[in-house]
């Protein structure tokens, strides 16, 4: 087990370093510095300002200072476009929003998807099973950027039940559609995974033994079949997490929820390099670490993986 953890960490660390160096290097090669403008500053003034912000240092020194700033003070530096806003302010403003609908979506995807998959497998070839299979096939062509406009069209424009956007301090009406849009395709994938693994488990020997000794069906399912059939879902949590982080760009873009994706996409349009880099490194390292934890968790639960 320890061996596996070490091996997994040995992948995560270079990944983090590559992410850091790659995004820093991309920002460095981007045309135009933070203080270049249409009316150029006198060279001496520019040099003074750059010295103040450490931009006259060699690149590796800048990178080092940046990393030290993040690690020791959680300081992602200033924005290059908005003078009254640092990357930290943006994180503080957008992160709670993204986290709120992200966590709810994550839970919805796991719980609804798992329940759908398990019940479809228990009643294989019933209408419930066909419904579940239909949903999983349909959801493949309904990624979040297709779901979101359709939801607005139906629930806001036609039925008028829900507000078409905004956040409003996280009122429940404003959370419903982002959660549905974000979670549907992952819910479907989880349902497909649990269905097929549950079918496999139900055919295995130890379930037959349990049947043979006369256990009632619900005990077999709850006590014996459920746990092993939910295992593959754990390995899917990593990709689902990544998908939801990137999916939040779409959610914030369509619903105007003002989460971190809104700032990221805006920064991409404004070429606000420091914000982009800060958010990339924050969200990127979060996904890398999450994936690592999930992998280790999976190996801990299922020893076959450690090999």
């Amino acid at each position: 087990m320890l061996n596996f953890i070490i091996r997994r960490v040995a992948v995560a660390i270079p990944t983090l370093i590559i992410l850091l160096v790659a995004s820093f290097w991309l920002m460095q090669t981007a045309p135009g510095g933070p203080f270049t403008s249409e009316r150029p500053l006198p060279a001496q003034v520019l040099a003074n300002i750059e010295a103040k912000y450490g931009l006259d240092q060699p690149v590796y020194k800048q990178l080092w200072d940046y990393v030290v700033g993040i690690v020791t003070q959680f300081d992602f530096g200033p924005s290059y476009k908005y003078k009254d806003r640092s990357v930290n302010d943006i994180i503080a403003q957008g992160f709670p929003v993204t986290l709120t609908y992200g966590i709810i979506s994550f839970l919805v995807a796991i719980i609804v998807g798992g329940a759908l998959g398990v019940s479809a497998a228990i009643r294989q070839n019933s209408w419930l099973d066909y419904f579940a299979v239909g949903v999983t096939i349909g959801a493949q062509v309904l990624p979040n950027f297709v779901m979101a406009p359709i939801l607005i069209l139906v629930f806001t424009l036609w039925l008028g039940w829900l507000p078409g956007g905004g956040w409003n301090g996280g009122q429940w009406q404003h959370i419903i559609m982002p959660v549905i849009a974000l979670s549907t395709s992952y819910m479907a994938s989880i349902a497909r995974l649990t269905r097929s693994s549950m079918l496999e488990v139900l055919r295995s020997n130890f379930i037959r033994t349990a049947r043979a000794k006369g256990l009632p069906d619900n005990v077999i399912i709850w006590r014996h079949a459920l746990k092993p059939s939910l295992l593959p879902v754990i390995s899917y949590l990593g990709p689902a997490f990544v998908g939801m982080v990137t999916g939040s760009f779409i959610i914030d873009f369509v619903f105007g929820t003002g989460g971190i994706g809104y700032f990221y996409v805006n920064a991409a349009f404004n070429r606000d390099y420091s914000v982009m880099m800060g958010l990339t490194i924050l969200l990127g390292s979060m996904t890398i670490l999450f994936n690592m934890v999930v992998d280790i968790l999976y190996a801990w639960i299922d020893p076959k993986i450690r090999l």
Partner: protein
Amino acid sequence: MNDRLVQPFQQPKTREIAERIAEDVKGRSLWADARRRFVANRAAMVSVVVLTLVVLFSLFGQFLSEYDIETPDWDVLGNVAAAGKPSIANGHYFGYDEYARDLYNRVIQGSRISLAVGVIGALVAVIVGTIYGATAGFIGGRVDSIMMRLVDIFMSIPYMFVLILLLVVAGRSITMIFVGIGLTAWLDMSRIVRGQTLSIKNREFVEAAIAIGVPTWRIIIRHIVPNLLGVVVVYATLLVPQMILTESFISFLGLGVQEPFTSWGALLSEGTKTMNYGMLWQLAFPLFFFVVTIFCFFFIGDGLRDALDPKDR
């Protein structure tokens, strides 16, 4: 072939029977077998037909229309919601978009770019991933573990961020999308191919090739890769919709294809903005083509998997 086999048995009767048997049980190759199974799969066959129609539409559809993708109709501009509805009579089959341009031609243009991104992206993934994976798997040992560790590392980088960074720094263009998608698409492929290679490389025919001194690269190209083809074809078909989805994602945010060109993602994004004004057709037509195409690729991929890899069922 048959004659030579039959020759030793010169008795007229046995020969006759042998000929008849040879006729009846004409050997079926793996591929003929797979084709038979694929053709029997109704969903996959329908998908092939529909997909062919979509491709033909994107290639030749423009000849049915007298308009182009960028000229606005000044009479309609400003009043598109009321005057820009789809109509067969005036030749704007799909109506106008919000800048009073002909939507029919824009959908054709968008389909072209989206399909091209999907197919070319998958192609790059296939070529690079196959060669990389086959090499790593066949050579094995330390080279293999270094090569695959590298893939592990690249795979755990959340590539959507890197793709967006790349597009912002290097300028938003379709070329950069190709580069960015191509950079990451081959990773999965190389893993799958490596796994398959490991199972092939200890077979007798590879041993025979090693024994008579065929160079390594030649064994990989001539003996390993052709035997991987089934898996590669299946996975490549499933990769195409993924590529299309990625490109659409980027273009939906406005970071991908730039005006006057467009893609399904960009068209959907525009449609989302104008559906408030009742211009539903601007969302409906791109959505239709998008959904239909993705569906087709999934069904074809599934059909190919069932056909080429029967033990997977």
